[in-house]
């Protein structure tokens, strides 16, 4: 299901910014700075597609998820859902929009209330959006949802602790599906799961997408998982998108040095490739988002760094000779992983 680009995107993000103030003093708080968690990003999500959002911890991917859900108020920028800016909405209008954007959280242990039964958890969205399901039919709908995500509908009266990690994540997914949203934001939905269970949940996400025509914003730090599930990928670094493109462009023809380093660092479960992989070893750590470097934010760890990188911030544009946007003054294709196509 390749989305046609003539469509309007379901969700479009323009110049999204979120700064968290840093304050000093107890009684008289004075703002002394800001953590620039998300610092001007643009994203587009089309119907039925999966947009992967990757980056290391602290790059702002989870803050982006919270902003898309309007769990946080953006400092600046627009979030257009079918052309309507939801960044400024409140009250009833916001509640109506929220029905269409749901979230699946990372940790299935802390994101489910231990004192509520599975039926209450999955059915809670119906209590908030009462018009979706008439009272009498709720139980049946919850059971249907449990069946859709591969849980036994008879377990409706059980509590979260009676389920395994993978099953709990399924409960979280069922809750996300309850209101038949158009978009599901998945914030690291499989990272807390065991390898043997992870595949079950990834496959479930794919099945549900086909069944309900869902669009996913899939946030993960595991680049292998993101490649497997995403149609398009945006790579984030310190609150900025540094490169964006379809799955093939990012993984087979990465142009931003950070993307290249990130991809080359992913361990491949194949010992025959040991020593034959093009591995780029980055120096140091990610700088603090409270005080990001001037110009290009990646310049402190980049091996291509020149004077211009400190002075001028590179724009996220399609550069000469390349086929997708990259925020590097010296963007150039370097294939770091050799892709094999399985048929």
């Amino acid at each position, binding site marked *: 299901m390749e989305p046609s680009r003539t469509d309007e995107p379901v969700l479009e993000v323009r110049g999204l910014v979120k700064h968290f103030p840093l304050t000093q003093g107890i009684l008289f708080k004075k703002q002394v700075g800001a953590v620039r968690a998300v610092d001007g990003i643009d994203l587009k999500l089309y119907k039925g597609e999966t947009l992967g959002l990757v980056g290391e911890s602290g790059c702002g991917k989870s803050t982006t998820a919270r902003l898309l859900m309007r769990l946080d108020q953006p400092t600046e920028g627009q979030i257009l859902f079918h052309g309507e800016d939801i960044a400024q909405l409140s009250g009833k209008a916001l509640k109506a929009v929220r029905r269409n954007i749901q979230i699946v959280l990372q940790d299935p242990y802390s994101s489910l209330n231990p004192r509520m039964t599975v039926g209450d958890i999955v059915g809670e969205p119906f209590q908030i959006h009462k018009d979706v399901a008439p009272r009498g039919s709720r139980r049946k709908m919850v059971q249907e949802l449990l069946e859709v995500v591969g849980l036994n509908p008879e377990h409706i009266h059980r509590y979260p602790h009676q389920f395994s990690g993978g099953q709990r994540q399924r409960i979280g997914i069922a809750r996300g599906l309850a209101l038949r949203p158009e978009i599901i934001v998945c914030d690291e939905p499989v990272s807390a799961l065991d390898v*043997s269970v992870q595949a079950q949940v990834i496959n479930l996400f794919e099945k549900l997408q086909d069944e309900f025509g869902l669009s996913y914003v899939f946030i993960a730090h595991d680049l292998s998982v993101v*490649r497997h599930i995403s149609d398009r990928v945006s790579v984030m670094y310190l609150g900025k998108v540094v490169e964006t493109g379809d799955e093939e462009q990012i993984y087979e023809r990465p142009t931003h040095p950070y993307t290249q380093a990130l991809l080359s660092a992913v361990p491949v479960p194949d010992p025959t490739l040991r020593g034959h992989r093009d591995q780029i070893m980055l120096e140091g750590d990610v700088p603090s988002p409270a005080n990001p470097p001037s110009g290009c934010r990646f310049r402190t760890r980049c091996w291509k760094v020149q004077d211009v990188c400190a002075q001028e911030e590179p724009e996220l544009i399609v550069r000469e000779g390349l086929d997708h946007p990259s925020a590097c003054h010296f963007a150039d294709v370097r294939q770091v992983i050799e892709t094999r196509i399985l048929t």
Partner: protein
Amino acid sequence: MTQTDTTTNQTPRHRKSAGEDRREQDPNATVLEVENLHVEFRTRDGVAKAVNGVSFDLHPGETLAILGESGSGKSVTAQAIMGILDTPPGYVTQGSVRFRGTDLLTLPEKARRRYRGEKISMIFQDALSSLNPVYSVGFQIGEMFRVHRGTSRADAKKHAIELMDRVHIPAARDRVNDFPHQFSGGMRQRIMIAIALALDPEIIIADEPTTALDVTVQAQVMQLLADLQAESNMGLILITHDLGVVADVADKIAVMYAGRLIEKAPVLELYASPAHPYTERLLAAIPRVDLKGQELYTIKGIPPNLTDIPAGCAFHPRCPYAQPICTEQVPALDEVSAGRRSACHFWKETLDGTLANR
């Protein structure tokens, strides 16, 4: 993480490095032998059999990866070797852990302390919670020298600075008095490595050393471990669930499931042709960054509860090839070929790929 050093690709027995001459004993002798180790946890909900007869050995300079999911008993095995098992509820009920011939499990606690940190040391997963937040990192690294060697405070600090240099912490002299929270995750893990390295142990056990780290930092830390290992010819036991990391660094692999070793093999053979259905399925269940159009196979069900391990082969409820015999008889860890073992009644068929899916 990539082993650029060509010598590290040879089998460990033939490896020659500066560290080898240092050892008094025969440098190529087995340094650690774990035999038939059993550990159980006696809890209110019953006895959880966390480790059920694990045996392996380790040579100097060798990297053994113990691979398994959560609850497979891999961390408990490490704790039993180190002698840091919480007792109660954890008890070693059987087996031996021999370090250069001495059984550590029968030693009195006082004698055992001579081994912990000096001969065998450990790196933990979560550096933030493993380091003491109220002492400076220099103090914590130096503690190894003060406690084990009776070094003075000033000398211990000097050693700490040297070690911080050795694990590539920038500006070690200025940072030696900093506290753990002032370091990033990757740097904290380096401090843990410095502590483990302090007394020049012969074995390092690394329990998920990079799980909490980002991929670029993970690559740095694994590279550091590989370099240090090559420098001093240490044996490394790497405990992890990450099949990617294992492929990059391990010499041999032991796969654990429900407290048992189910497959042991040199790294190349294990990935090329797994001899146990669990390993085979696990390899097919992970998405790979270099594959396109990959179909993910799933392993049905979940890992078993250790208080109630299924009879026969513990994997049989999830195994696509399970036969009646699998539910009755615990498969022995049979020799498949030299240095290779598999605990499956049908390892031959698994290797040939002739098992029918049912």
